[in-house]
């Protein structure tokens, strides 16, 4: 658990973070979102003491971070950044082993950990372990960055716009990877982004920041339903908010269970597809209902246009 | 303080060094008492085989002629190998320009004696040969450093290849080329001084003569003049480069 209590950060006369309080429970995926300069990165970097905070208290699992040796603290917290910050003079393997080495793990344990992480991030060991950062694509480098952040098996993972520099397709696949990994390892993740779609997709809780203050914190659904201010609403895309909301609801949750078979040749939905996808298909194919299939391709229900308009369960 | 800075900014430094150089060349012999103090047991304490002014002019003309030839050949060669018809020679020329700088200038100077005998000619040859390298190298770097979209735009608006070269490529590369010329001339002023060991009459003469005869006063007179000459020319180049960057700034704005 991470607690920030009345925390401020000033650079000279400028206040970057202004008296914020925030509690992040263990296992939460907390996304700090806001425009550039809103203090989200500064907040993140205060948690691992890359920046000292000017006022207030920051606790990790009840322990004041200033009581902990700064290097020991950082070795307990995974850290990944947009430019990856991979060490260009070291191989992928050596890069991942940085924190385990600093922690003094035995060689066999480090080796096993590297293999485990490369497998987890879908980077075949034989192909990637010996490569150097300059030989990796942007997406691969970022995977290695995430692997390196996870290497010391930290309870907490801090990620500063890790996918910000990637193309949309790579970014989406890495977001999916991260969700998959999180479902296996259940870390406490604090993730900074300026991309609201990314926040909505990843977060269990979104913290919206503006001018150094927290303007709203809530689950993605609640945020979409009840934006606290015009600023939050505009971050949520203004008039497109409905579509974003639709993106969070799954067809399987809204469909009607039915035996009423629809011809298999037409368009169809997976149960895991969002109703945003459903809406798009209906618009494309000019139809009012679509069959919903399970993973094996068997029809398990039907989704009608009318159902999309009902309030969410 | 601000006044001093402003004067220095307006190109006062080259003038200052030039005045110092000229007054040294014309007035060093007035300081006979001083040199007598440095070299007490010698009668002749002022170098007098040639006047300092004529040595200075000789030194300058050797360096100047060599620099002119190096610039014409060097810039020309670099332009030639960066045209489509000369591109085959580009790798060789750029390699030679960088490997060549490994050769110590004294060695080049010494090796031109077996070829040309003694005097100003072998000195000039060595200066030209060695002076070419930084010029070729910097011209190549300058030409290659130009954003290809700029060249495309120049061709796109209908400039001929000569117009592209004269109006776009050379002006944009000028600062880097100038830096190369500056390096070349700096090295050449030093090498020309050593040229007096192979019979060229330069400001190195008093130094060499002083070293041979154990006359520190001679050495000092030569050294002061050589040093002042180098610093004067260097400050002139600095001024020139500054005015070019100012021009570039204006162009950008």
């Amino acid at each position: 658990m991470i607690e920030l209590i009345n925390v401020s950060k000033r650079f000279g006369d400028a206040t970057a973070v202004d008296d914020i309080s925030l509690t992040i429970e263990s296992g939460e995926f907390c996304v700090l979102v806001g425009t550039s300069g809103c203090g989200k990165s500064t907040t993140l970097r205060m948690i691992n003491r890359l920046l000292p905070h000017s006022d207030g208290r920051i606790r990790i699992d009840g322990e004041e971070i200033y009581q902990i040796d700064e290097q020991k603290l950082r070795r307990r917290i995974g850290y990944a950044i947009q430019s990856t910050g991979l060490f260009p003079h070291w191989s992928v393997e050596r890069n991942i082993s940085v924190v385990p080495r600093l922690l003094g793990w035995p060689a066999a344990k480090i080796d096993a950990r590297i293999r485990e992480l490369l497998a987890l991030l879908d980077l075949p060991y034989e192909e990637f372990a010996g490569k150097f950062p300059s030989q990796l694509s942007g997406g691969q480098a970022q995977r290695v960055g995430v692997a390196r952040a996870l290497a010391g098996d930290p309870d907490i993972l801090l990620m500063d716009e890790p996918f910000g520099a990637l193309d949309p397709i790579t970014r989406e696949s890495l977001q999916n990877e991260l969700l998959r990994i999180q479902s296996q390892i259940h870390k406490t993740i604090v993730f900074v982004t300026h991309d609201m779609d990314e926040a909505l997709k990843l977060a269990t809780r979104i913290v919206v920041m503006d001018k150094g203050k927290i303007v709203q914190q809530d689950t993605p659904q609640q945020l979409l339903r009840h934006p606290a201010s015009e600023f939050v609403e505009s971050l949520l895309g203004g008039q497109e908010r409905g579509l974003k909301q639709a993106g969070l609801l799954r067809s399987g949750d809204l469909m009607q269970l039915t035996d009423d078979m629809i011809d298999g040749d037409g368009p169809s939905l997976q149960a895991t597809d969002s109703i945003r996808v459903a809406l798009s298909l209906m618009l494309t194919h000019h139809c009012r209902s679509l069959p919903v299939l399970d993973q094996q391709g068997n029809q398990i229900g039907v989704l009608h246009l009318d159902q999309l308009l009902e309030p969410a369960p | 303080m601000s006044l001093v800075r402003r004067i220095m900014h307006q190109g006062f430094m080259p003038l200052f060094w030039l005045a110092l150089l000229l007054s040294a060349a014309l007035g060093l012999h007035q300081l006979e008492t001083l040199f007598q103090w440095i070299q007490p047991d010698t009668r002749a304490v002022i170098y007098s085989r040639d006047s300092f002014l004529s040595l200075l002019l000789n030194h300058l003309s050797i360096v100047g002629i060599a620099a002119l030839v190096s610039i014409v050949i060097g810039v020309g060669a670099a332009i030639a190998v960066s045209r489509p018809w000369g591109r085959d020679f580009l790798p060789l020329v750029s390699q030679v320009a960088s490997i060549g700088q490994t050769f110590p200038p004294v060695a080049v100077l010494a090796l031109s004696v077996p070829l040309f005998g003694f005097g100003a000619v072998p000195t000039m040859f060595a200066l030209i040969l060695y002076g070419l390298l930084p010029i070729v190298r910097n011209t190549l770097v300058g030409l290659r450093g130009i954003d290809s979209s700029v060249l495309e735009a120049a061709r796109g608006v209908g400039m001929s290849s000569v117009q592209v070269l004269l109006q776009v490529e050379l002006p944009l590369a000028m600062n880097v080329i100038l830096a190369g010329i500056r390096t070349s001339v700096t090295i050449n002023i030093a090498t020309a001084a050593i040229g007096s060991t192979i019979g060229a009459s330069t400001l190195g003469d008093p130094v060499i003569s002083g070293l041979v005869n154990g006359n520190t006063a001679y050495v000092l007179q030569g050294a002061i003049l050589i040093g002042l000459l180098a610093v004067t020319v260097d400050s002139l180049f600095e001024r020139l480069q500054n005015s070019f960057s100012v021009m570039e700034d204006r162009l950008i704005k």
Partner: protein
Amino acid sequence: MKSTLPVNRVLLVLVLLALASLWGLDYASVQPNRIVPGAGQSLMSALGWPWASVLTLLLVICACTPVRSSRALLYQLMIVVLLILQLPLSLGWFIERHIDPALPYARAGIGAGFWVLLFLLGLMLIEIKQRIRLHAGWSLVIWLLILAVILISVPWLEPLALMREYQTRSQQFAQALRSHLALVGGAVGFSLVSGFILALLLNRYPAARKSCFGVLSFIQTIPSLALFGLLIAPLSYLSANSPLLQQLNVRGIGWAPALLALIAYSLLPMVRNTFIALHEVSADVLESARGMGMSPRQVFMQVRLPLALPIIIEGVRITTIQAIGLTAVAALIGAGGFGTFIFQGLGQAAMDLILLGALPIIVLALLADAFFSAAADRFKPGVKG
């Protein structure tokens, strides 16, 4: 634009130049003794028609190998290496034909044709090596081969004027090598350490950067002869007034002013490269090193220094090459080294003595260049080691 000729135009030009100089200039010369100027010998008379025609033929084949064939470069490389290997042997053959062993003072001079051929073959080697991906091992083999042939032919080359000059001065030659290396090593070593410290200080105190680099580049502007000369007066004054300095053999001329001037010249490239190297390590990499929990010491030793190393080595390379050349000038103020032979040779108008001084200086500079370039490559980040 593609070349319309089916052959490599660069090699063609180089070969034509080589042929012209081979047939137009003297290949070697014969001197009855050290004083009498030598009589030049053309290629034909120096080596005889079989050797001359094989040489010519090889050059022509090298130029005419069509570039289309994939192995052309390999053949051309082999021919050029072969031509280089024959150079010392051809001198041996020339001596065999023209120097009468019964005349102990007769000596063979190397002609302009030989030197130009050597130079052009060097250019051909550079040209070919740029276009061919040669394994580092093969480069080494080529160099070892060349070295081996030179060593093998040494006994035959004794009547060579250069060798004669060497033999009468083998002691001085060894001494010159020692003092040259000592001056270069001392200057580079000292400036490496002090340059490193200075660069660290500049990294910490940005206010001092401008004035520090200003002073160092001002020194760099002053010609070597002037700086050596300017140091004589103060050093002889100090030495005259300090018995300790006299004991250390610090005088107005000799090693002391030479070393001082060399260090002064070495500081600029050393400080500049070290400063840039340490300063320009990416801030993101440093931040993530801190973020991983490295101590400041670990960040410096494991990340900053290794990443800066290639550029620091590049600084050492520039400094060393510069110092090798400047040490030659320092011979004028009695500091010893190979420059001594150059200036003695100039004084006596003895061309081969000049060569005896100039060639080792060039070889030293090229060796330093090769060694430090390889070292810098070795430490480049992100290359499979």
